[in-house]
Structures are given as C-alpha cells and as structure tokens.
C-alpha cells in the first residue's frame, strides 16, 4: 500500500526558524526515520537530523511528531496519519533543524554517578556479585533507558528550570540506588535531594507516557523522592 504524505518539518538554520513541507509517496511499514532519509536523499540534502542504530537502541533519533516526543525509527508513518508535523525535542537548544544540543542532558546524567559504586573494588581480583531474581527485578526495568531525551522534552519542570536534573537522570540515580550490589546510595541521595533534584518534580508524569522503552521514569522519580525524604529525616537525627 502506498500513499502520499506530507512531512511538515520545523527547521532552524542557525538564525531563523521556519516550517517546510515535503510531499512524497510513503509505503506501508515505512518509518518516520526512513521518511527523513528519503527527503535528505531525494528532496533536500540540507535537512539535518540525528540517527544511528535505526532499531530503537541508541536513542539518537528522538523528535517531536505531532507534538509528542517519539523515536523516529520506531514510529511508522501510517500509524500517525497523512500529515506529520516534525519538530526537534523541547527543553534543549536547537543546533540545526531536528538536531538538539544534548550536552546538558548528558552532563546531568553524569552528575548522578550512574555506575556501581563499591568500596571493595579490586580489578586485579574481580569477584562475582550475586543477586537473587527479586533483587534484579527491583531495578531491571529502569536499566533499559536509552538516553533519548523524550522524557526530558515532555517534562514541564525541565521547561522552566535549566538546573533541574530531569526524569532521565533521576531514573538513572534510582536504578543504581535500587541495585543490591551498589554502595553509593548516600552519595547519590545527596546529589538528588536538592531543589534541582526530586523536589522540583510536580508529578506531571508525561515522562512515563512518552518513554519509548516504557521505563516509567515518573515512578522512579517518586521512589527516589521517598528515599530522599527518609534520608533527609534520618540525617536530622544523625
């Protein structure tokens, strides 16, 4: 099955923002990313967008499609309709067309120490860290984040405060805090307990709606908030 579709793309050339329409014939099963490549190869070579794996793994192709952040490589054109409005993600500076500067987003991720912290690290004599299936399930879902930035784009708290860590970074913090092998919970709690951390979230929960991996970042943020509250109360009596 083939049908003519319109890609209405919000473009930015470094100075001005404008909308441009592209018409082409799409076939059944074609993804938005394939449509973007079609435009770049056949209609306008100057169109800029990011993509890599083309299979929902790398997280580079997230854009807003008809207002909702989605992975372009995982979204089929016909599932959306005949006219697709494609825009760069919100809450990050646009560099060119659909490419946003994700530097700040990754710095926030880095800031919460998203790795296992152990006091007995000994690379010469590595030891196996065993976990029960229950211990694995406590954090497993949250470890599936591909850092696409869709949640960050949809978050209204990130829209007004550039220092807010955002749902992805807090989810990463929770993923490690909930890991039975980790010993860095205290460090991370100190990092996310401020007003630029969990207390900035006002539970819009749109992050959970748009996450392409169904990770439920809003759930992680609320759990981290509870952990943070207990941590703060305990620290008063310490």
């Amino acid at each position, binding site marked *: 099955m083939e049908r003519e579709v319109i890609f209405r793309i919000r473009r930015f050339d470094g100075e001005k923002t404008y909308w441009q329409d592209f018409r082409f014939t799409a076939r059944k099963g074609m993804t938005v990313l394939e449509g973007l490549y079609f435009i770049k190869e056949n209609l306008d070579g100057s169109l800029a967008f990011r993509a890599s794996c083309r299979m929902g793994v790398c997280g580079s192709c997230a854009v*807003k*499609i*008809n*207002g*909702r*952040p989605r992975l372009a490589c995982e979204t089929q054109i016909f599932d959306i309709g005949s006219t697709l409005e494609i825009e760069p993600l*919100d*809450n990050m500076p646009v560099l060119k067309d659909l490419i946003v500067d994700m530097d700040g987003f990754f710095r926030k991720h880095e800031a919460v120490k998203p790795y296992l912290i152990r006091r007995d690290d000994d690379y010469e004599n590595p030891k196996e860290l065993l976990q029960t299936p229950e211990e694995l399930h406590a954090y497993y879902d949250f470890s599936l984040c591909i850092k696409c930035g869709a949640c960050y784009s*949809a978050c*209204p708290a*990130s*829209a*007004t405060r*550039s220092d807010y860590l955002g749902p992805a970074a807090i989810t990463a913090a929770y993923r490690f805090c909930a890991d039975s092998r980790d010993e860095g919970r205290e460090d991370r709690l100190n990092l996310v307990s401020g007003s630029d951390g969990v207390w900035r*979230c*006002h*539970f*819009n*929960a*749109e992050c959970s*709606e748009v996450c392409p991996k169904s990770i*439920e970042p*809003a*759930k992680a943020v*609320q*759990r981290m*908030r*509870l952990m943070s509250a207990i941590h703060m109360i305990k620290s008063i009596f310490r």
Partner: protein
Amino acid sequence: MKGVSGWFTLKGKSLNSLAYSFHRLTGIVLLLYLIAHLSFLTSLRIGEETYTAFISTTVRLETLPLDSLLFLATFYHAFNGLRVVLNEFGLLYEARKALIYLMTLLGLLFWLYSTYVMYLFLTGW
C-alpha cells in the same frame, strides 16, 4: 528551554498534562483571589464602611457566576492536589489516570453543591 508555555502546551500530551495545566491555571486564579481577599480584609483598617462598600460590590446575585467559578477552581485545585500528594508519596501510581477522573468528579460534585448553597444564601434561603 520551553519556558512557562511548557506548563500549558497540550498538543500531543496526555490526560496527565491536562490535569497539570489546570492545576497551574487554578493555582494562579487562587493566587489572584488571595490578593483580592487580603485587599478586602485590609480595607477594614480604613473603616467598616469601606469594607462594607467593597463587600456589597461582590456579594450579589450578579456576581454569583464569578463566585461559582472561584469555587470550581478551588475544588479542582484541592482534589487534584490531593491526587498529586498521593502519587508523590509513591501511592496509587498505577491508578494515576483513574485517580484524575475520580478527583475531578469529586471536585465537580463539591462545586455544584457549593454553587447551590451560595444561590440559596443570596436568594434568602
């Protein structure tokens, strides 16, 4: 950054964002009301007559729709706020959409009843 418009952008968003936008909007309405309310009360310092004059301009049958809208904002904000508090304690996260419907319904019921009571009051019971 999208700025404050990010609080009210609904295109492509879910019911969660609609509830969130209304919460912000009703919060702003309540803030404006609080300022007016405190101004009215402060007028008591000038004298009882000033206060009574102020009150007589607002406590009337003609302004009932405005009072009614204020109560709508109040009840929506209160019940939706309760939902947010529950969710933020990590409770009923999975039922968050059902809770939006439930709390909105409760807000509407309280609003209708309060408007009815206000109407009775203004029309002399």
